[in-house]
């Protein structure tokens, strides 16, 4: 069925010549528009958080906004899924900002964990003393920011237990970590106090191998892999965000999962 139409007079013939200028204008406008948007995109493609231009500042601001949203989404009682021993990824992948043979060789007997910042007891910790604290075990999924994931087993001292042992001010905002390989990272206090956040000493029930962070790695199954620093030599509690090796280059700081 056709819709009722006005009885039509014969329509005027449309002659191209009458409309050429208008058409050219439209064409020019469209060309301008598309070249503008292409140009804009190629400009944007250079924005990578490394130079402090306007777009980069917007991206950094959005990343800080994402920190806040993720802090709200984080639930202290929500546990990361755990797995059976048969599901452990074997071999477990090595990952760092350097090749595996460059992983620092640390003598466990000489190693100490320095403690600083808003804590009552700043005495350094030996491995033996850390092992005398209550230990926890977990088989959880390590998720890398690159997209791959692997299931591993870590055991060690719950960070909450350790923070209590050193009389840390748990109302402070951050816990920072420094590593023997120049790496550093930090956690928000709620994530630090999460029951599955541990100062891991063992991988698969054996002392951590060099490539997995001997003698101490922070295991946080509620964070992306790069928030799990290895070869930790110092821990400090602070109200100033300590940042991190990757975080300061542009990885999102909170990076909760």
């Amino acid at each position, binding site marked *: *069925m*056709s*819709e009722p*139409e006005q009885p039509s007079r014969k329509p005027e013939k449309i002659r191209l010549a009458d409309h050429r200028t208008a058409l050219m204008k*439209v064409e020019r406008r*469209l060309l301008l528009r598309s070249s503008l948007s292409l140009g804009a*995109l190629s400009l*944007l*493609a*250079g*924005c*990578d*958080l*490394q130079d402090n231009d306007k777009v980069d500042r*917007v*991206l*950094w601001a*959005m*990343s800080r*906004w*994402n920190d806040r949203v993720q802090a709200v*989404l*984080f*639930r202290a009682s*929500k*546990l*990361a*899924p755990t797995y059976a021993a048969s599901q452990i990824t074997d071999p477990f992948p090595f990952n760092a900002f350097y090749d595996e043979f460059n992983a620092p060789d640390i003598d466990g007997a000489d190693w100490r964990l320095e403690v600083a910042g808003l804590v009552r007891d700043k005495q350094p910790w030996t491995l033996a003393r850390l092992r005398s604290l209550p230990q926890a075990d977990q088989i959880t*999924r390590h*998720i*890398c*920011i*690159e*997209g*791959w*994931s692997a299931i591993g087993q870590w055991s060690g001292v719950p960070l909450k237990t350790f923070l209590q042992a050193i009389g840390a001010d748990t109302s402070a905002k951050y816990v920072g970590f420094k590593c023997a390989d120049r790496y550093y990272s930090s956690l928000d206090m709620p994530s630090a106090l999460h029951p599955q956040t541990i100062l891991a000493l063992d991988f698969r029930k054996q002392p951590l191998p060099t490539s997995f962070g001997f003698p101490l790695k922070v295991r946080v*199954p*509620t964070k992306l892999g790069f928030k799990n620093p290895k070869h930790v030599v110092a821990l400090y509690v602070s109200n100033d965000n300590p940042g991190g090796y*990757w975080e300061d*280059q*542009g*990885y*999102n700081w909170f990076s*909760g*999962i």
Partner: protein
Amino acid sequence: MPNSAVLHPLAVRIAHWLNAFAIVCMLMSGWAIYNASPIFGFRFPVWATLGGWLGGAIAWHFAAMWLLMANGLFYLLYGVLSGHFRRHFLPLHVRDVLLDAVQALRLRLPHQAGSYNAVQKFLYCGVIALGVLVVLSGLSLWKPVQLEFLSNLFGGFDFARKVHFAAMAGIATFVVVHLLLVALVPKTLLPMITGLGRKSKSVT
């Protein structure tokens, strides 16, 4: 202009162009993230990626996702509440889609400004569904612990990456077809900017 009418309401035009920008950002930054650890045997060419390095790509992805989600929600709410979806996308019958698809493949399906044929209805509904899928699977990858139920719904973290990829591939295919059709029928472009166009006389 005789027969001139608003083909695309302002809300739809704004949502369309914001979405176009967000989708381009999400696709290009997503390809850069994929390249960091490919799940299939290929990488996307670097010139097609956004962000320069993984940190930059992720910053883009997690910034543009807010635009994509907010604009998508606005569009869905508008579409449902204003009756836009009901008027333009419904009714949708499999038989009509198949019939029109055959016509389209023979290049015998005329374009009618102001009303959608069954293939168009199917494609627009399909890409909206893919949009929902890509956002939900993306959220499950972003928060596999806090949104564990969502992660489980998509078969766990590793499988959710494939779901996210498949939804992306569907949307990218839609974009290619969509742009090809605009190139074939260029008069459809201006109404998406100005809103105005001539409604085709309906065919008996």
